[in-house]
């Protein structure tokens, strides 16, 4: 009898220590419970009518889903880059500035405040995708071809990106007045859920399909774990790394579209500021190793929402926005300490001892 119960508890323990996805889930639960205790109205969701006369949902939870989208999308690409190259891309913020700038350039032409769009939005977006993928390819070539370490290779674009973005639009600040452009960062008429969340979900579905119907996961992991061995098994490690940067480029373009759509304009020096750090943090909060190899995509995406959950919570409590980072740091440290294998092992052996004592007594 007793044996079975201890076995069961051991199984649960094992499950807990084995599955890395439980790390971000536990983090979300922690934040959720905290908010529930502090102020249950946090969970209020209401259905309102928006300026276009459509029903939309609103509330803190919706805000989290809405504003966490860009980060979730970036987390997808960042996870792949991390897994394949064992390093991180710090140029995604600058990349978003470029993508946004390209979109506006195509939409507005040379006139920074056009009365009507110069090109369909889809064309602008596709052009941005191509440009972003080219910049991703540039990073990829430096990392895979020239074997420059990712963080430094991408430092180049990090330094130049916002300047390039300004250059693309000749330092004008275009404003799009067409209301359809605002759909991507707001609501599509008739749908009460924010569009960015839909876009994020679409990205997740695409990546999930890619992982199911291709060998993206196996190849990326193999290359990230052991490059030599992967080569001898017929893989081309350089190409896989390159590919991961190109995919991240695509993610950057999508995030860029959402960002510029949110305010129908751009500010080159502050758009998506410091988002690279949050994207990396999302990967890490998902329990993935930042030195490459195995990864769990779902966990990374959840990690992104953990960060947004935290940010929204802090805004709710009216923490000064330039001090938010200090609180964020404390929560992040608590989370990683709890999920650290060493700590969990210690904890497990401690509970074991306690149990043993109880049994003796």
């Amino acid at each position, binding site marked *: 009898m007793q044996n079975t119960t201890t076995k069961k508890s051991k199984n649960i323990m*094992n499950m807990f220590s084995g599955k890395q996805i439980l790390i971000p889930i536990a983090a979300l639960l922690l934040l959720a419970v905290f908010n529930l205790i502090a102020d249950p109205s946090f969970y209020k969701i209401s259905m309102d009518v928006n300026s276009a006369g459509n029903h939309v949902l609103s509330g803190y939870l919706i805000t989290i889903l809405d504003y966490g989208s860009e980060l979730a999308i970036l987390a997808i690409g960042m996870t792949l880059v991390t897994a394949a190259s064992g390093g991180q891309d710090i140029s995604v913020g600058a990349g978003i500035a470029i993508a946004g700038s390209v979109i506006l350039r195509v939409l507005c032409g040379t006139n920074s405040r056009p009365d009507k769009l110069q090109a369909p939005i889809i064309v602008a977006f596709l052009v941005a995708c191509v440009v972003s993928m080219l910049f991703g390819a540039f990073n990829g070539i430096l990392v895979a071809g020239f074997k420059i370490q990712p963080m430094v290779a991408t430092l180049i674009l990090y330094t130049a990106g916002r300047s390039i973005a300004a250059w693309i639009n000749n330092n004008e600040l275009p404003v799009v007045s067409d209301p359809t452009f605002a759909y991507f960062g707001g609501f599509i008429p008739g749908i009460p859920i924010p569009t960015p969340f839909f876009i994020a979900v679409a990205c997740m579905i695409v990546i999930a399909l890619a992982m*199911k*119907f*291709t*060998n*993206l996961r*196996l*190849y990326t*992991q*193999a290359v990230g*774990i*052991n490059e*030599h*061995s*992967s*080569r*001898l*098994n*017929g*893989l*081309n490690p350089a190409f896989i790394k390159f590919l991961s940067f190109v995919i991240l480029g695509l993610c950057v373009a999508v995030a860029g579209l959402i960002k510029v759509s949110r305010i129908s304009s751009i500010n080159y020096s502050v758009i998506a500021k410091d988002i690279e750090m949050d994207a990396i943090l999302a990967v890490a909060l998902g329990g993935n190793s930042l030195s490459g*190899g*195995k990864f769990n995509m779902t966990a990374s995406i959840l990690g992104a929402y953990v960060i947004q959950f935290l940010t929204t919570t802090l805004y709710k409590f009216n923490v000064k926005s330039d001090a938010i980072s200090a609180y964020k740091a404390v929560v992040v440290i608590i989370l990683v300490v709890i999920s650290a294998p060493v700590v969990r092992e210690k904890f497990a052996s401690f509970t074991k001892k306690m149990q043993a004592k109880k049994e003796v007594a």
Partner: protein
Amino acid sequence: MKNIYKSFPGVKALQAVDFTLCEGEIHALMGENGAGKSTLIKVLTGVYEKDGGDIFLKEHEGAVAIRSPQDAQNLGISTVYQEITLCPNLSVAENMYIGRGKGIGQNWKKMNADADKILKSLDIPAKATQQLSSCSIAIQQMVAIARAVDMDCKVLILDEPTSSLDEQEVEKLFGLMRDLRSRGVGIIFVTHFLDQVYEVCDKITVLRDGKLVGEYEIKDLPRVKLVAKMLGKELDDEADIKDESLVYEADESIPPVVEVEGLQSNAGIKPFDFNIRKGEVNGFTGLLGSGRSECVRAIFGADRVTGGTVKKSGKVVKINKPLDAMKQGIAYLPEDRKRDGIVGDLSVRDNIILAAQVLRGFFKPFSKAQANKFADEYIKLLEIKTASADTPIKSLSGGNQQKVILARWLLTHPEYLILDEPTRGIDIGTKVEIQKLVLKLASEGMSVTFISSETDEMLRTCSRLIVMRDRKKVGELSGEELSQSSIMDTIAGGDKE
């Protein structure tokens, strides 16, 4: 050591193991792959924390606590681990002296001079100031041994130190061990070479499946019995294999499967010719560093080819990278398992299907069921000891890792299989099985190139041997010419002329 317990998730690596080492003896620790030998050593030297049991040392009252390799070193236990554990980015001398001695300063002149002296006395062809990563595995292994031997120790532990050494070096090592024994040092020696055990050891302890089988005086335990103890069953004699190998008749009329002319790679081998016929088993032999591996790496496209042609079934094919070779039905099991073979964090299953998967293509992943089927099939076929197919390969014992890599290549159903030291670090039972497997595959029509540092093994399996010296092909032996002495003659040929 008394009553040692150690388990990993899913594996009970050691259960109630006792081990006693006396002063001035060489004590062999034997067992199959995955029996727990390395684990026992790692527990003894503080790399792993033990789950239960005690360690006693002479001169110390009661059990001693060894929590880190540093503690072990301080207690006079010096160790050469199975996987070479040196820092590739440091110089040879630094690798020999780091982590030893007190104080904060380091006298570099003296250290380099001392190191050079030791290297010289052991005939190791390396310089003290050379960066370790520029040395071959064998030399790295020797450096590790030199480091351990140089320490003023009471206990010396050698975990498969001979796996990448050739005979002369092994002899040198034995000389050293005997010398230390006469000075009262106790030595634990792990190896899969039975000859070596009988050559130097005084006592044998046998482990099986993490449990102690027993401790024996060397004279009480003849070879056959030892093998039986290790495997838990009688082993067919090795001699059997030889008969099977004779099945293959060198038939000149069969056209070669793979034919190589004047092949040359950037790794520095001289142009060489080579061919292999369907169903043939041949091999490369030569001294350490004579360029055996480099030849086959060139055929597989693992090194950059700089000249020569490769013909597959009579047609010239271009092999620039491993994938080209794989597409031609060539498979290569590399010699450096840790660096070139395993993908450490991936599961056994993924490691098995990797090459076949790559051949199949990016857009056609195996289904889960298929992958599981393949994994289970080969785990059974090769008797791979693993908790499950989901276990990361890095937590398997060395020998079982090797089997997984072998399984990986068998799954691609190659026409031509290159095995570079496939039996390195593999226990006697498995070794025999692998040799049998090779011959069986050959009889089914696969061509196999087999490279091994053990001439016996080569003689048993191969019908033709290519002899290498100084990265040059110096001869080819087949049929009647195949014997220990003729090989030696050809290898030494240059000196005699």
